[in-house]
């Protein structure tokens, strides 16, 4: 029996005075869709606390898309923080949606966004707190259909047993199609198993329970997923892609939170996709092709959004905003339109080679706190390997532009453990930060608060990238190189931070594993792993124990190199980029040969456009 749909806020209210940040659980924000008449009810979940999940633009887009459909209603849910979870478990209060405070288990569809690999144990916790069986196989006829989508579906095998269906690619139409299919099937009383068969026919939808994992001589030890005979499920599920991106609503965010959230500002997605071709970047490969919104649309949407939400900051978001062919024009027009209103215009991170003088003058209006650049590697040789087509000169020019236009603080992002990396590449990281620091001191003045910091992440090989075959760097070696990094920084004013090797190790293992990864995730959750993306909560010891309990070793999994011709655990899902292209890119990487950006050069044959029937959409000229 499906849980009853009822308002259970009175069960939560007495707990509010006992927990940290009660505003996480209030709902009633400005812009929230309080009319939730259904009759078909969907709840979208971000399995982390409110302030982390609420800014997620993908969820905001889907919330709006579903609520716009006649007869469908969409609510939100987040994972409560540990203090609230304990109280709820103690008193037998199930997880509720925000808008109607209805039990999650009463919904027709519960949809998760998978933002990264470390959310896995939180997904299990969410379902368990909701009283929904954790795996598709255990769910009863009437239970909600549990679906997933988002940037991290590209190796969803470790969570595959959890989901009834997984949507690959853009969700604007895909998720609505899934919901409509479920609604239609439920309307005619179709049994759950048949609903799953039906969902497998929806383009872009992967139904894990219809696939068997087969290990043979062509695969890695994690095997491949093969559709079971007679199910009609496709051998390879190709992603959904909104070719006419400019035809989608540019203003997805309606809800204005009370709580200071992670990105507390209006976001306008100015373009989708990036064709720079960085070889480590999963988003770069999986969000192709590049689709820009025209400048007028962005400017009008931003103005309208500011008026509608009352935000005093608008962020022009995308994978690479400064690459937008009309970026300078957009910034200029937006600054002119908001002049005198105390509004900031910001962009999330800047490409070194496209952050020109014009942009330096326009970003962030009056408040120029910090600027971030991502050279990713310290030497030109290694940058060529990863296809990060920027030079030391680009870094110096961008830094000069920024310092000359009033910036004082600069943060540089790098990665450690990239294929072919040597100690020389590591030592070069602080060296280039020092050059930036010297530039800053020369331009701004020696005691004017110039600050440069470097943040070094551990490279984690991801599915559907040219580096998907790589092994991750062994943890002991990560630690050795981190010592070299710190030891070779001679300027005490440069702050060096690096990612925890343990977190990266778990991320690496979960990124590599096939469906057997579920045993690991499940065991880790059983042992108490939760909020793994939070440094304060992450427990490497428990993850190690979980791995041992299921007969795995985290490093052995994460650091394994796959054969270039092996069938991979995620080969049955496709973002449209062909495996041949990825193999070619891997070979070019090993030769140190770079590949140009197809929005600036000719088509490089990645396969996305012909296979999905889409094209790059660029409104101006990309420099």
């Amino acid at each position, binding site marked *: 029996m499906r849980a009853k749909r009822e308002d259970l*806020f009175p069960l939560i*209210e*007495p707990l*509010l*005075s006992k927990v940290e*940040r*009660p*505003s996480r659980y*209030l*709902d*009633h*924000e*400005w812009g929230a869709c309080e009319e939730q008449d259904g009759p078909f009810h969907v709840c979208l979940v971000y399995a982390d606390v409110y302030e982390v999940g609420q800014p997620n633009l993908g969820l905001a887009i889907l919330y709006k898309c579903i609520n716009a459909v006649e007869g469908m209603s969409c609510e939100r849910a987040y994972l409560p923080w540990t203090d609230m979870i304990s109280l709820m478990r103690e008193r037998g209060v199930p997880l509720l949606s925000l808008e109607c405070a209805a039990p999650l288990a009463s919904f027709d569809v519960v949809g998760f966004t998978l933002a990264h690999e470390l959310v896995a144990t939180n997904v299990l916790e969410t379902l368990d707190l909701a009283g929904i069986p954790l795996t598709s196989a255990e769910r009863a006829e009437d239970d909600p259909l549990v679906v997933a989508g988002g940037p991290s579906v590209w190796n969803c095998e470790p969570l595959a047993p959890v989901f009834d269906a997984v949507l690959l690619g853009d969700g604007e139409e895909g998720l609505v199609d899934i919901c409509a299919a479920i609604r239609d099937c439920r309307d005619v009383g179709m049994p759950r198993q048949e609903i799953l068969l039906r969902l497998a026919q929806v383009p872009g939808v992967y139904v894990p329970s219809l696939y068997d994992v087969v290990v043979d001589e062509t695969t890695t030890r994690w095997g491949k997923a093969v559709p079971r005979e007679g199910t009609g499920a496709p051998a390879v599920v190709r992603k959904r892609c909104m070719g006419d991106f400019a035809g989608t609503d540019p203003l997805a965010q309606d809800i*204005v939170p*009370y*709580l*200071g959230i992670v990105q*507390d500002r209006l976001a306008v997605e100015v373009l989708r996709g990036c064709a720079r071709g960085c070889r480590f970047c999963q988003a770069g490969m999986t969000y192709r092709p590049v689709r820009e919104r025209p400048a007028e649309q962005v400017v009008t949407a931003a103005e309208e959004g*500011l*008026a*509608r*939400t*009352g*935000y*005093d900051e608008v962020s022009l978001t995308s994978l690479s905003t400064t690459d937008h062919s009309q970026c300078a024009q957009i910034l200029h027009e937006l600054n002119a339109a908001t002049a*005198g*209103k*105390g509004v900031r215009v910001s962009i999330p991170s800047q490409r070194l080679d496209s952050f020109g003088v014009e942009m330096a003058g326009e970003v962030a*209006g*009056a*408040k120029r706190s910090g600027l971030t650049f991502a050279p990713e590697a310290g030497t030109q040789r290694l940058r060529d390997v990863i296809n990060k087509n920027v030079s030391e000169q680009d870094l110096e020019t961008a830094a000069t532009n920024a310092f000359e236009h009033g910036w004082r603080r600069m943060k540089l992002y790098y990665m450690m453990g990239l294929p072919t990396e040597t100690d020389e590449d590591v030592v070069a990281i602080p060296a280039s930060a020092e050059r930036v620091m010297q530039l800053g001191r020369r331009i701004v003045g020696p005691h004017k608060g110039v600050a440069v910091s470097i943040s070094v992440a551990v490279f984690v090989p991801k599915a559907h990238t040219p580096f998907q075959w790589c092994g991750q760097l062994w943890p002991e070696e990560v630690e050795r190189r981190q010592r070299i990094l710190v030891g070779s920084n001679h300027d005490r004013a440069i702050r060096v931070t690096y990612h925890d090797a343990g977190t990266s190790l778990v991320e690496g293992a979960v990124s590599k594993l096939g469906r057997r990864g579920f045993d690991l995730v499940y065991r880790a959750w059983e042992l108490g792993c939760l909020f793994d993306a939070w440094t304060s909560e992450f427990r490497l010891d428990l993850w190690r124990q979980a791995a041992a309990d299921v007969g795995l070793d985290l490093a052995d999994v994460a650091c394994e190199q796959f054969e270039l011709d092996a069938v991979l655990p995620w080969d049955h899902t496709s973002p449209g980029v062909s495996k041949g292209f990825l193999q070619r890119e891997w070979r070019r990487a090993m030769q140190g040969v770079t590949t140009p950006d197809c929005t600036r050069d000719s088509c490089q044959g990645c396969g996305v456009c012909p296979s999905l029937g889409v094209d790059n959409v660029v409104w101006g000229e990309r420099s």
Partner: protein
Amino acid sequence: MMDSLHRLRVEYGKDDRLAYLGHLEVIGTVQRSVRRAGLPFSIGNGFARRMRIQFSQALPVGASSACEYYDVYLEDRIDPDEALELLAAATPPGLAPVRAAYVDPHQDALEAWLTRATWDCVLVGQGLAPVAWTRATAAVRAKGSLRYLRGDKEKTVQLASTLVSADFSPSEEGLRLALETRNTPEGSLRPGVLVEAARELLGAEAGIMDTLRVRRVWQSHEETDGSLVEPL
């Protein structure tokens, strides 16, 4: 510069579940409401270019109120009723504005100017005896000052100046406390702090208090002669 601006005072409530908003969350929400309302607010000259706006003293998280205030400085003088209407349409119902009027731009900062508050508190529970609680509160007051923890910081509040009166009476849910407090430059008394001190003193005699419900019902300015001036 400030002389050419118009200081609009807005009275609003903090109700229902929005009682659980923290002070910073209220500030952020009100500022966004003012922007959404399209009022001709003034922007400060500082580096951060913030809206010129002042708020009455922070309410404890969980406390509701019938009488919160903010003063927003406007560049143009628009009809206060019209401003109120625009704000009402742009504010979440739990923080709905109820009155608005222009006040003297030279008056002290709002938070310092509002020196008196009346609280209606309900101690929800069983076995809470008005006599015992009145006695305990008098004993707490007789000590002169009260030390308490806020987060992990130790604070002291002088009761002689900040506690004006405290009257307990029976209520359906337990015990009702009508409390009058005074804010001084040295500090102010939060209802929860007083109730907690009395409870500690009473020990087992206190009865069982499940929750303390706090509502601020009136704020005003106290002149040197003791007379009270309404904010609007």
